[in-house]
């Protein structure tokens, strides 16, 4: 399935885009999404051990499964406040 992954902050700057489309084979987990992202966009490599993934606007662990149509985002550690 194709997933449109929103990117923020330094992840967006490194990727050069605020949304990346990646292809993962079903059934897919967050870990597989991260691996697909790294292949699709090698520029994200310096961030990759630190990237956080949100699925449906909730933080998602590596084992969480993904489904088409869910909102997916990927970003480095937050620094608001």
């Amino acid at each position, binding site marked *: 399935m194709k997933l449109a992954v929103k990117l923020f902050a330094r992840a967006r700057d490194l990727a050069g885009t605020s949304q990346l489309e990646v292809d993962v084979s079903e059934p897919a987990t967050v870990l597989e999404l991260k691996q697909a992202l790294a292949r699709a966009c090698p520029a994200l490599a310096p961030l990759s051990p630190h990237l956080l993934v949100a699925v449906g606007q909730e933080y998602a662990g590596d084992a969480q499964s993904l489904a088409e149509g869910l909102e997916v985002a990927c970003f480095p550690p937050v620094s*608001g*406040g």
Partner: protein
Amino acid sequence: MIQLTNDPIDFAALTEQVRSNAAGAVVLFLGTVREFTHGRQTLRLDYEAYSQMAESKMAELLEQARARWPIVKAAIVHRLGTMELGDISVAVAVSTPHRDQAFEAGRWLIDTLKEVVPIWKQENWDDGTKEWIHPGLKKSP
């Protein structure tokens, strides 16, 4: 009440909002743009958010705080966009019957906001460089 805004934060109105005859204590926390960090000089900060998720996380924080402390009223506002030195980037206001509760809840709200709400700041240093701040990561090259 939670809010993301591009406008300056009216902390006085926010504080008025949480005052109540049921509360003996109000704590307001303001995060402001500091000029020097470890000897480096900031010109301004740019804040961006994953807005819908940030709003839902901020609302969750208020719910969690209400479960832990006898909060009368509470509000969080975070500003986005470009902020100059001294500007207020975030305001947390909370009222409770007694002061220990207001201090604890206010402290927990801002600490937890900084850990879980998807908002990021970018430093604009006085040497002309920009740098996204991502705790735990090495500085950008």
